């Protein structure tokens, strides 16, 4: 038995090594052109950054063009996260492996979640776009669905890691099933639910850029157009906004999690 275990571990290790080597070789990095390529990359980024007053004035003039899509992006992320979280809450109870529902139900729901999770948001966005047309409603639905799928799984994992102790204690002192849920379980899972929901909101902000690329509303479309039309100053402004937005949300979510830990 020991030899088989060692052999299978060795095979696994060799397979992993082969995968890594194959992936890097597959890059076909052209060493001769590497210096010029890197220089071109830097100049590309350099042209996104404003030089001088005229460039700054141009950046500011984009305000009217960019403000509405930016707000759309934020709205899509908020609506998608809230709707997804609300739907995921009840779903997680059926998805979790607990003693309440049969194991087969949990297994069936988990495989559905896993299949759905393998598909990127942009694919859902394309499907919904073809059904209801261009715009931020389609983007919100796609983001909401993906959030529902991933939060159902994460919430269920939090439920599965609950310790039985406080549940026993509330039951043993005469609490009914609702009280056991509110006092024995919720305090244990609430910090996890909050943290994963906030993380998912950050992720959704980035996702709502991506779905914008296929026309589901938000700044993504502007980002792609600016690159195609070589208006790199526009690209720079949009990326800067994304960086600020994601970091502001990250900071706020850190503060909120600290309060409710």
């Amino acid at each position: 038995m020991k030899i088989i275990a060692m052999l299978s571990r060795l095979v696994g290790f060799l397979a992993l090594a082969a995968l890594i080597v194959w992936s890097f070789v597959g890059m076909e990095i052209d060493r001769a052109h590497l210096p010029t390529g890197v220089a071109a990359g830097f100049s590309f980024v350099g042209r996104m950054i404003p030089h001088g007053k005229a460039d700054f004035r141009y950046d500011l003039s984009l305000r009217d063009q960019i403000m509405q899509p930016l707000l759309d992006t934020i709205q899509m992320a908020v609506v998608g996260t809230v709707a997804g979280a609300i739907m995921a809450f009840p779903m997680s109870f059926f998805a979790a492996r607990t003693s309440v529902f049969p194991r087969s139900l949990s297994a069936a729901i988990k495989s559905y979640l896993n299949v759905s999770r393998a598909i990127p948001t942009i694919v859902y966005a394309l499907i919904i776009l073809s059904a209801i047309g261009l715009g931020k409603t389609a983007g919100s639905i796609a983001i909401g669905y993906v959030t529902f799928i991933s939060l159902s799984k994460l919430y269920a994992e939090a439920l599965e890691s609950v310790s039985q102790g406080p549940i026993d204690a509330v039951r043993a002192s005469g609490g009914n099933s609702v009280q056991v849920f509110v006092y024995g379980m919720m305090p244990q899972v609430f910090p996890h639910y909050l943290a994963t929901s906030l993380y998912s909101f950050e992720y959704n902000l980035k996702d709502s850029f991506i779905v914008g690329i296929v026309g589901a509303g938000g700044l993504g479309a502007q980002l792609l157009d600016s690159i195609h039309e070589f208006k790199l100053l526009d690209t720079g402004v949009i990326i800067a906004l994304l960086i600020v937005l994601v970091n502001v949300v990250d900071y706020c979510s850190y503060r909120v999690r600290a309060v409710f830990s």
Partner: protein
Amino acid sequence: MPDAIVIKQLAHTYRGGAPVLHGLDLTIAEGEFVGLIGLSGAGKSTLLRCINGLITPTGGSCIVLGEAVEKMPESERRLLRRRIGMIFQEFNLVDRLTVLKNVLIGRLGYLPTLSSCLHRFPASDVSLARECLAQVGLTEFEGRRVRDLSGGQKQRVAVARTIAQGAKIILADEATANLDVLTKDEIMDLLKDLVRDTGATVLFSMHDIALARRYCTRIIGLKNGAITFDAAPDQLDDAAVADVLARAEHGAMK
């Protein structure tokens, strides 16, 4: 003294497992402080959980405060459990909630579901909970979160919770096993005072033989799911201890 607990031919087998309890007979009078000793796996926890109906035994009967637990539906067991406090080795408090809230959990069985789930407690219950905290010496800790307390303080919160329940019977499942020597005594003293002041009955499973000898009025030895010793502490000599704690060749070991 009337009987607090009457156990008749109690037997239990967990689904897919070996039998844990084999036809136990046991009567405990009100006001007794009973120590339950035995190896891990001897069936001590299972016995305690049959008494408050967390487990329905596969055979026999537990008559607690005059009522047969195994015959009751869950709704009636809840009413009975209000009068049976339970403290645990791992404390089993709700770590994120305050000390006062944890004591108030002992009142949940007396309160309507909706308001209690909104964390609303009647003023009379809050003042009762404060009195219970004073009794265990934790008055100044009421607003602290339980997770910031030491092990001994946590167990005192658990004792306060059973006092808040107005428990007539206290089941303690290895409740001093995680505590240091001095803190063990503090907890035992609290329970002893409770027995003296309220006439409560204590059934305490423990590994610490010296502690059992000092505090209990009666000691029961459980071995492979059967009672092999049942007498006053002064009769628990070293030979008797060795017999209870001897590992059998074919036991219900995990």
